[in-house]
Protein backbone atom coordinates (compact mmCIF):
# COMPACT_ATOMS: atom_id res chain seq x y z
CA UNK A 1 0.00 0.00 0.00
CA UNK A 2 1.20 3.46 -0.90
CA UNK A 3 2.64 5.58 1.88
CA UNK A 4 0.70 8.79 2.67
CA UNK A 5 3.78 10.91 2.02
CA UNK A 6 3.91 9.49 -1.50
CA UNK A 7 0.48 10.94 -2.31
CA UNK A 8 1.67 14.48 -2.92
CA UNK A 9 -0.49 17.45 -3.88
CA UNK A 10 0.67 16.98 -7.47
CA UNK A 11 -0.47 13.36 -7.46
CA UNK A 12 -3.83 14.26 -5.88
CA UNK A 13 -4.37 16.90 -8.54
CA UNK A 14 -3.39 14.50 -11.30
CA UNK A 15 -5.78 11.97 -9.77
CA UNK A 16 -8.79 14.28 -9.95
CA UNK A 17 -7.81 15.37 -13.46
CA UNK A 18 -7.85 11.79 -14.72
CA UNK A 19 -4.12 11.86 -15.43
CA UNK A 20 -3.28 8.77 -13.39
CA UNK A 21 -3.03 5.34 -15.01
CA UNK A 22 -5.69 2.81 -14.02
CA UNK A 23 -3.42 0.62 -11.86
CA UNK A 24 -2.04 3.56 -9.87
CA UNK A 25 -5.55 4.97 -9.65
CA UNK A 26 -6.82 1.88 -7.88
CA UNK A 27 -3.95 2.04 -5.43
CA UNK A 28 -4.74 5.68 -4.68
CA UNK A 29 -8.43 4.84 -4.26
CA UNK A 30 -7.66 2.23 -1.64
CA UNK A 31 -5.37 4.68 0.08
CA UNK A 32 -8.06 7.38 0.07
CA UNK A 33 -10.61 4.99 1.51
CA UNK A 34 -8.31 4.60 4.54
CA UNK A 35 -7.39 8.25 5.00
CA UNK A 36 -10.24 10.74 5.63
CA UNK A 37 -7.84 13.70 5.59
CA UNK A 38 -6.73 12.93 2.06
CA UNK A 39 -10.33 12.32 1.01
CA UNK A 40 -11.31 15.71 2.40
CA UNK A 41 -8.50 17.35 0.45
CA UNK A 42 -9.59 15.63 -2.75
CA UNK A 43 -13.13 16.94 -2.14
CA UNK A 44 -11.80 20.50 -1.77
CA UNK A 45 -9.80 20.26 -4.97
CA UNK A 46 -12.70 18.82 -6.92
CA UNK A 47 -15.07 21.47 -5.63
CA UNK A 48 -12.62 24.21 -6.63
CA UNK A 49 -12.21 22.70 -10.09
CA UNK A 50 -15.96 22.44 -10.61
CA UNK A 51 -16.61 25.97 -9.40
CA UNK A 52 -13.96 27.35 -11.72
CA UNK A 53 -15.32 25.46 -14.69
CA UNK A 54 -18.86 26.64 -13.96
CA UNK A 55 -17.81 30.27 -13.46
CA UNK A 56 -16.53 30.60 -17.02
CA UNK A 57 -19.08 28.46 -18.86
CA UNK A 58 -21.09 31.55 -19.72
CA UNK A 59 -18.07 33.60 -20.85
CA UNK A 60 -18.60 33.86 -24.59
CA UNK A 61 -17.51 36.37 -27.24
CA UNK A 62 -21.08 37.65 -27.29
CA UNK A 63 -22.19 39.72 -24.33
CA UNK A 64 -23.43 37.46 -21.54
CA UNK A 65 -26.54 39.63 -21.63
CA UNK A 66 -27.30 43.26 -21.19
CA UNK A 67 -30.30 43.79 -18.98
CA UNK A 68 -28.88 43.61 -15.45
CA UNK A 69 -25.35 43.45 -14.23
CA UNK A 70 -23.71 42.61 -10.95
CA UNK A 71 -20.27 43.99 -10.21
CA UNK A 72 -17.59 43.66 -7.59
CA UNK A 73 -16.64 46.60 -5.41
CA UNK A 74 -14.65 44.40 -3.13
CA UNK A 75 -13.39 41.10 -4.44
CA UNK A 76 -14.64 39.27 -1.39
CA UNK A 77 -18.20 38.29 -1.98
CA UNK A 78 -19.19 36.06 0.85
CA UNK A 79 -20.90 32.96 1.84
CA UNK A 80 -24.09 33.21 -0.19
CA UNK A 81 -22.44 31.77 -3.25
CA UNK A 82 -21.67 28.26 -4.25
CA UNK A 83 -21.96 26.59 -0.86
CA UNK A 84 -25.31 28.21 -0.35
CA UNK A 85 -26.33 26.92 -3.76
CA UNK A 86 -25.29 23.39 -2.95
CA UNK A 87 -27.02 23.54 0.41
CA UNK A 88 -30.13 24.90 -1.27
CA UNK A 89 -30.08 22.09 -3.81
CA UNK A 90 -29.80 19.50 -1.08
CA UNK A 91 -32.63 21.18 0.79
CA UNK A 92 -34.76 21.05 -2.33
CA UNK A 93 -34.09 17.31 -2.62
CA UNK A 94 -35.15 16.80 0.99
CA UNK A 95 -38.26 18.89 0.58
CA UNK A 96 -39.25 17.29 -2.69
CA UNK A 97 -38.77 13.73 -1.59
CA UNK A 98 -39.30 13.98 2.17
CA UNK A 99 -35.93 12.38 2.69
CA UNK A 100 -34.29 12.04 6.09
CA UNK A 101 -31.05 14.07 6.29
CA UNK A 102 -28.74 11.06 6.60
CA UNK A 103 -30.48 8.65 4.27
CA UNK A 104 -28.49 7.62 1.20
CA UNK A 105 -29.49 9.47 -1.92
CA UNK A 106 -30.10 6.16 -3.67
CA UNK A 107 -33.38 5.94 -1.77
CA UNK A 108 -34.75 9.00 -3.50
CA UNK A 109 -33.27 8.69 -6.95
CA UNK A 110 -35.86 8.68 -9.67
CA UNK A 111 -36.04 6.12 -12.40
CA UNK A 112 -35.96 7.15 -16.05
CA UNK A 113 -39.77 7.33 -15.91
CA UNK A 114 -39.80 9.54 -12.83
CA UNK A 115 -40.99 7.00 -10.23
CA UNK A 116 -39.17 6.27 -6.97
CA UNK A 117 -37.78 2.75 -7.07
CA UNK A 118 -35.89 0.53 -4.63
CA UNK A 119 -32.73 -0.77 -6.24
CA UNK A 120 -30.67 -3.95 -6.06
CA UNK A 121 -27.82 -1.53 -6.13
CA UNK A 122 -28.81 -0.23 -2.71
CA UNK A 123 -28.40 -3.71 -1.20
CA UNK A 124 -25.00 -4.04 -2.83
CA UNK A 125 -24.09 -0.61 -1.51
CA UNK A 126 -24.82 -1.62 2.08
CA UNK A 127 -22.50 -4.61 1.83
CA UNK A 128 -19.71 -2.86 -0.07
CA UNK A 129 -16.31 -2.23 1.48
CA UNK A 130 -15.21 -0.06 -1.42
CA UNK A 131 -17.46 2.59 -2.98
CA UNK A 132 -16.29 4.47 -6.02
CA UNK A 133 -17.88 7.42 -7.76
CA UNK A 134 -17.01 8.31 -11.35
CA UNK A 135 -17.93 11.84 -12.39
CA UNK A 136 -18.17 12.83 -16.05
CA UNK A 137 -18.56 16.44 -17.18
CA UNK A 138 -17.06 16.20 -20.66
CA UNK A 139 -18.64 15.20 -23.97
CA UNK A 140 -15.28 14.06 -25.29
CA UNK A 141 -15.89 10.53 -26.66
CA UNK A 142 -12.35 9.49 -25.72
CA UNK A 143 -12.98 10.41 -22.09
CA UNK A 144 -16.28 8.58 -22.14
CA UNK A 145 -14.63 5.45 -23.52
CA UNK A 146 -11.82 5.66 -20.99
CA UNK A 147 -14.30 6.07 -18.15
CA UNK A 148 -16.15 2.92 -19.22
CA UNK A 149 -12.81 1.09 -19.57
CA UNK A 150 -11.87 2.06 -16.01
CA UNK A 151 -15.28 1.07 -14.69
CA UNK A 152 -15.08 -2.29 -16.44
CA UNK A 153 -11.61 -2.87 -15.00
CA UNK A 154 -12.88 -2.20 -11.49
CA UNK A 155 -15.93 -4.42 -11.95
CA UNK A 156 -13.73 -7.25 -13.22
CA UNK A 157 -11.38 -6.84 -10.26
CA UNK A 158 -14.24 -6.73 -7.77
CA UNK A 159 -15.51 -10.07 -9.06
CA UNK A 160 -12.15 -11.64 -8.27
CA UNK A 161 -11.77 -9.90 -4.91
CA UNK A 162 -13.28 -10.69 -1.52
CA UNK A 163 -13.79 -6.95 -0.97
CA UNK A 164 -17.22 -6.04 -2.27
CA UNK A 165 -17.41 -2.92 -4.34
CA UNK A 166 -20.05 -0.58 -5.74
CA UNK A 167 -19.56 1.88 -8.54
CA UNK A 168 -21.69 4.87 -9.43
CA UNK A 169 -21.23 6.86 -12.62
CA UNK A 170 -22.71 10.33 -12.51
CA UNK A 171 -22.85 12.65 -15.50
CA UNK A 172 -23.75 16.31 -15.63
CA UNK A 173 -23.08 19.27 -17.88
CA UNK A 174 -21.65 18.14 -21.24
CA UNK A 175 -21.04 14.68 -19.79
CA UNK A 176 -24.77 14.00 -19.93
CA UNK A 177 -24.32 13.05 -23.59
CA UNK A 178 -23.00 9.68 -22.41
CA UNK A 179 -26.49 8.81 -21.18
CA UNK A 180 -28.60 10.40 -23.93
CA UNK A 181 -30.12 7.64 -26.02
CA UNK A 182 -30.14 9.76 -29.18
CA UNK A 183 -26.51 10.84 -28.84
CA UNK A 184 -24.38 8.28 -27.00
CA UNK A 185 -22.21 5.82 -28.85
CA UNK A 186 -22.05 3.58 -25.79
CA UNK A 187 -25.67 2.52 -25.43
CA UNK A 188 -25.06 -1.23 -25.78
CA UNK A 189 -22.04 -1.18 -23.53
CA UNK A 190 -23.83 0.66 -20.72
CA UNK A 191 -26.84 -1.62 -21.04
CA UNK A 192 -24.63 -4.71 -20.84
CA UNK A 193 -22.70 -3.41 -17.84
CA UNK A 194 -25.91 -2.68 -16.01
CA UNK A 195 -27.40 -6.06 -16.90
CA UNK A 196 -24.36 -8.07 -15.83
CA UNK A 197 -23.61 -6.21 -12.58
CA UNK A 198 -25.92 -5.24 -9.75
CA UNK A 199 -23.15 -3.17 -8.15
CA UNK A 200 -23.10 -0.41 -10.74
CA UNK A 201 -25.45 2.45 -11.29
CA UNK A 202 -25.64 5.24 -13.84
CA UNK A 203 -27.04 8.58 -12.68
CA UNK A 204 -27.89 11.69 -14.70
CA UNK A 205 -28.14 15.23 -13.34
CA UNK A 206 -31.72 16.51 -13.46
CA UNK A 207 -30.57 20.15 -13.38
CA UNK A 208 -28.59 19.62 -16.57
CA UNK A 209 -31.59 17.93 -18.17
CA UNK A 210 -33.84 20.83 -17.17
CA UNK A 211 -31.35 23.35 -18.53
CA UNK A 212 -31.12 21.58 -21.88
CA UNK A 213 -34.87 21.19 -22.16
CA UNK A 214 -35.50 24.82 -21.24
CA UNK A 215 -33.10 25.82 -24.03
CA UNK A 216 -35.73 24.83 -26.57
CA UNK A 217 -33.84 21.92 -28.12
CA UNK A 218 -36.50 19.39 -27.17
CA UNK A 219 -36.88 16.66 -24.60
CA UNK A 220 -33.84 14.83 -23.30
CA UNK A 221 -34.12 11.07 -23.76
CA UNK A 222 -32.02 8.93 -21.42
CA UNK A 223 -31.01 5.30 -21.72
CA UNK A 224 -33.51 3.11 -19.82
CA UNK A 225 -30.94 2.00 -17.21
CA UNK A 226 -30.03 5.56 -16.26
CA UNK A 227 -31.47 7.04 -13.07
CA UNK A 228 -31.81 10.70 -12.15
CA UNK A 229 -30.58 12.81 -9.24
CA UNK A 230 -31.74 16.35 -8.53
CA UNK A 231 -28.31 17.91 -8.86
CA UNK A 232 -25.15 16.22 -10.11
CA UNK A 233 -22.84 18.39 -8.03
CA UNK A 234 -24.90 17.86 -4.88
CA UNK A 235 -24.78 14.13 -5.50
CA UNK A 236 -20.99 14.24 -5.87
CA UNK A 237 -20.56 16.29 -2.70
CA UNK A 238 -22.88 14.02 -0.75
CA UNK A 239 -21.18 10.87 -1.95
CA UNK A 240 -17.83 12.24 -0.88
CA UNK A 241 -19.21 13.16 2.52
CA UNK A 242 -20.41 9.56 2.79
CA UNK A 243 -16.85 8.40 2.20
CA UNK A 244 -17.06 7.45 -1.45
CA UNK A 245 -13.85 7.58 -3.42
CA UNK A 246 -14.04 9.94 -6.36
CA UNK A 247 -12.67 9.79 -9.87
CA UNK A 248 -13.06 12.73 -12.21
CA UNK A 249 -13.19 11.58 -15.81
Amino acid at each position, binding site marked *: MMDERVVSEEI*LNAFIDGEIESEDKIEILYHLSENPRLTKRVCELIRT*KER*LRAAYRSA*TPDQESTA*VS*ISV*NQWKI*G*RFGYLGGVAASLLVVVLLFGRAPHAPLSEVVLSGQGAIVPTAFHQAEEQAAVRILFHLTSDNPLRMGKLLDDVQLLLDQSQQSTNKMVVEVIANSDGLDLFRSDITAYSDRIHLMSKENNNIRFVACQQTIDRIESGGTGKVHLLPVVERAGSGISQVVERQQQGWSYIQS
Partner: protein
Amino acid sequence: MKIVQLFSKSREVRERIIDSRERLFRVAYSWCHDRHHADDLCQETIMTALEKSGQLRSEDALDGWMFRIMQNAYRKSFRRASKQVDVESLEYHMEQEPPAEADVERAEEILQVRASLAQLNESQRMIIALIDIEGMSYKDAAEALEIPIGTVMSRLARARDNLCCLLQESTESEPALKLRQRRGKQRPHLVVKN
Protein backbone atom coordinates in the same frame (compact mmCIF):
# COMPACT_ATOMS: atom_id res chain seq x y z
CA MET B 1 -6.34 12.06 -55.36
CA LYS B 2 -3.68 13.00 -52.83
CA ILE B 3 -4.03 16.66 -53.73
CA VAL B 4 -7.80 16.48 -53.18
CA GLN B 5 -7.29 14.83 -49.81
CA LEU B 6 -4.74 17.42 -48.81
CA PHE B 7 -7.07 20.21 -49.86
CA SER B 8 -10.05 18.86 -47.92
CA LYS B 9 -7.86 18.20 -44.88
CA SER B 10 -6.61 21.74 -45.00
CA ARG B 11 -10.20 22.99 -45.24
CA GLU B 12 -11.19 20.90 -42.20
CA VAL B 13 -8.33 22.37 -40.19
CA ARG B 14 -9.31 25.88 -41.16
CA GLU B 15 -12.92 25.22 -40.18
CA ARG B 16 -11.79 23.83 -36.83
CA ILE B 17 -9.66 26.90 -36.23
CA ILE B 18 -12.59 29.23 -36.90
CA ASP B 19 -14.97 27.11 -34.82
CA SER B 20 -12.64 27.32 -31.82
CA ARG B 21 -13.35 31.01 -31.23
CA GLU B 22 -15.62 30.46 -28.25
CA ARG B 23 -13.17 28.15 -26.50
CA LEU B 24 -10.29 30.51 -27.14
CA PHE B 25 -12.31 33.43 -25.83
CA ARG B 26 -13.23 31.63 -22.62
CA VAL B 27 -9.58 30.96 -21.81
CA ALA B 28 -8.40 34.38 -22.97
CA TYR B 29 -11.01 36.04 -20.78
CA SER B 30 -9.95 33.99 -17.77
CA TRP B 31 -6.38 35.14 -18.35
CA CYS B 32 -7.04 38.88 -18.69
CA HIS B 33 -10.63 39.38 -17.40
CA ASP B 34 -11.25 42.03 -20.03
CA ARG B 35 -13.77 41.26 -22.74
CA HIS B 36 -12.26 43.55 -25.35
CA HIS B 37 -8.72 42.32 -24.78
CA ALA B 38 -9.94 38.72 -24.81
CA ASP B 39 -11.74 39.28 -28.10
CA ASP B 40 -8.67 40.90 -29.67
CA LEU B 41 -6.52 38.06 -28.41
CA CYS B 42 -8.88 35.52 -29.90
CA GLN B 43 -8.99 37.18 -33.27
CA GLU B 44 -5.22 37.55 -33.40
CA THR B 45 -4.84 33.86 -32.54
CA ILE B 46 -7.30 32.74 -35.22
CA MET B 47 -5.72 34.94 -37.87
CA THR B 48 -2.22 33.70 -37.05
CA ALA B 49 -3.42 30.08 -36.97
CA LEU B 50 -5.13 30.42 -40.35
CA GLU B 51 -2.07 32.06 -41.81
CA LYS B 52 0.27 29.36 -40.53
CA SER B 53 -2.05 26.34 -40.71
CA GLY B 54 0.29 24.78 -43.26
CA GLN B 55 2.94 24.49 -40.55
CA LEU B 56 0.74 22.25 -38.42
CA ARG B 57 2.20 18.74 -38.52
CA SER B 58 -0.79 16.83 -37.18
CA GLU B 59 -4.45 17.66 -36.70
CA ASP B 60 -4.29 16.08 -33.25
CA ALA B 61 -1.88 18.82 -32.20
CA LEU B 62 -4.21 21.62 -33.31
CA ASP B 63 -5.54 22.59 -29.88
CA GLY B 64 -2.14 22.73 -28.18
CA TRP B 65 -0.76 24.65 -31.14
CA MET B 66 -3.51 27.26 -31.13
CA PHE B 67 -3.30 27.88 -27.41
CA ARG B 68 0.47 28.18 -27.79
CA ILE B 69 -0.11 30.91 -30.38
CA MET B 70 -2.52 32.60 -28.00
CA GLN B 71 -0.21 32.47 -25.01
CA ASN B 72 2.59 33.98 -27.11
CA ALA B 73 0.26 36.74 -28.27
CA TYR B 74 -0.88 37.30 -24.71
CA ARG B 75 2.64 37.56 -23.39
CA LYS B 76 3.73 39.92 -26.16
CA SER B 77 0.93 42.42 -26.31
CA PHE B 78 -1.42 42.18 -23.37
CA ARG B 79 0.89 41.34 -20.54
CA ARG B 80 2.63 44.69 -20.74
CA ALA B 81 -0.66 46.51 -21.00
CA SER B 82 -2.34 45.08 -17.92
CA LYS B 83 -0.25 43.00 -15.59
CA GLN B 84 -2.73 43.39 -12.80
CA VAL B 85 -6.39 42.58 -13.23
CA ASP B 86 -8.70 45.23 -11.83
CA VAL B 87 -10.86 42.96 -9.73
CA GLU B 88 -13.32 45.70 -8.86
CA SER B 89 -14.14 46.20 -12.51
CA LEU B 90 -15.45 42.67 -12.94
CA GLU B 91 -19.09 42.49 -13.87
CA TYR B 92 -21.57 39.76 -14.60
CA HIS B 93 -24.65 40.44 -16.69
CA MET B 94 -28.05 38.87 -16.26
CA GLU B 95 -31.02 38.74 -18.58
CA GLN B 96 -34.03 39.22 -16.36
CA GLU B 97 -34.94 42.59 -15.01
CA PRO B 98 -35.29 42.53 -12.06
CA PRO B 99 -33.20 39.39 -11.66
CA ALA B 100 -34.55 36.37 -9.80
CA GLU B 101 -32.91 35.64 -6.46
CA ALA B 102 -31.42 32.42 -7.79
CA ASP B 103 -29.84 34.36 -10.66
CA VAL B 104 -28.33 36.87 -8.25
CA GLU B 105 -26.86 34.05 -6.16
CA ARG B 106 -25.45 32.44 -9.27
CA ALA B 107 -23.98 35.76 -10.39
CA GLU B 108 -22.39 36.23 -6.96
CA GLU B 109 -20.86 32.80 -7.14
CA ILE B 110 -19.49 33.45 -10.63
CA LEU B 111 -18.01 36.79 -9.62
CA GLN B 112 -16.51 35.34 -6.47
CA VAL B 113 -14.70 32.65 -8.43
CA ARG B 114 -13.60 35.00 -11.21
CA ALA B 115 -12.33 37.58 -8.74
CA SER B 116 -10.38 34.89 -6.91
CA LEU B 117 -8.86 33.54 -10.11
CA ALA B 118 -7.88 37.05 -11.14
CA GLN B 119 -5.73 37.31 -8.03
CA LEU B 120 -3.53 34.37 -8.89
CA ASN B 121 -0.25 35.19 -10.53
CA GLU B 122 -0.18 35.02 -14.29
CA SER B 123 1.50 31.65 -14.74
CA GLN B 124 -0.87 29.98 -12.28
CA ARG B 125 -3.88 31.62 -13.87
CA MET B 126 -2.82 30.41 -17.29
CA ILE B 127 -2.25 26.79 -16.36
CA ILE B 128 -5.39 26.37 -14.27
CA ALA B 129 -7.50 27.95 -17.03
CA LEU B 130 -6.19 25.52 -19.63
CA ILE B 131 -6.74 22.47 -17.41
CA ASP B 132 -10.00 23.34 -15.66
CA ILE B 133 -11.80 25.71 -18.00
CA GLU B 134 -10.64 24.35 -21.35
CA GLY B 135 -10.33 20.76 -20.07
CA MET B 136 -6.91 20.16 -21.59
CA SER B 137 -4.75 17.18 -20.76
CA TYR B 138 -1.46 17.85 -18.97
CA LYS B 139 0.38 16.92 -22.15
CA ASP B 140 -1.52 19.43 -24.30
CA ALA B 141 -1.20 22.13 -21.64
CA ALA B 142 2.54 21.51 -21.47
CA GLU B 143 2.77 21.94 -25.24
CA ALA B 144 0.60 25.05 -25.21
CA LEU B 145 2.65 26.75 -22.51
CA GLU B 146 5.96 25.27 -23.69
CA ILE B 147 6.85 23.87 -20.28
CA PRO B 148 7.63 20.32 -19.05
CA ILE B 149 4.77 18.18 -17.68
CA GLY B 150 6.45 18.21 -14.26
CA THR B 151 6.16 21.98 -14.23
CA VAL B 152 2.50 21.72 -15.26
CA MET B 153 1.86 19.47 -12.28
CA SER B 154 3.68 21.59 -9.69
CA ARG B 155 2.30 24.88 -11.01
CA LEU B 156 -1.24 23.52 -11.18
CA ALA B 157 -1.01 22.17 -7.63
CA ARG B 158 0.08 25.60 -6.34
CA ALA B 159 -2.61 27.34 -8.39
CA ARG B 160 -5.43 25.13 -7.06
CA ASP B 161 -4.13 25.43 -3.52
CA ASN B 162 -4.03 29.23 -3.75
CA LEU B 163 -7.47 29.33 -5.37
CA CYS B 164 -8.89 27.09 -2.60
CA CYS B 165 -7.50 29.53 0.00
CA LEU B 166 -8.82 32.63 -1.78
CA LEU B 167 -12.27 31.11 -2.17
CA GLN B 168 -12.25 30.05 1.45
CA GLU B 169 -11.32 33.58 2.55
CA SER B 170 -14.06 35.14 0.46
CA THR B 171 -16.62 32.64 1.72
CA GLU B 172 -15.82 33.58 5.31
CA SER B 173 -16.41 37.29 4.75
CA GLU B 174 -19.81 38.94 5.20
CA PRO B 175 -21.28 40.53 2.10
CA ALA B 176 -23.80 43.34 1.91
CA LEU B 177 -25.78 43.62 -1.28
CA LYS B 178 -27.64 46.60 -2.45
CA LEU B 179 -29.55 47.41 -5.55
CA ARG B 180 -28.89 50.73 -7.21
CA GLN B 181 -29.80 52.42 -10.44
CA ARG B 182 -27.02 52.69 -12.95
CA ARG B 183 -26.51 56.35 -13.69
CA GLY B 184 -27.92 57.48 -16.99
CA LYS B 185 -29.11 54.07 -18.17
CA GLN B 186 -31.68 53.59 -15.42
CA ARG B 187 -30.88 49.93 -15.13
CA PRO B 188 -30.84 48.09 -11.85
CA HIS B 189 -27.22 47.45 -10.96
CA LEU B 190 -26.27 45.09 -8.19
CA VAL B 191 -23.19 46.08 -6.27
CA VAL B 192 -21.46 43.71 -3.94
CA LYS B 193 -19.93 45.40 -0.93
CA ASN B 194 -17.74 43.90 1.72
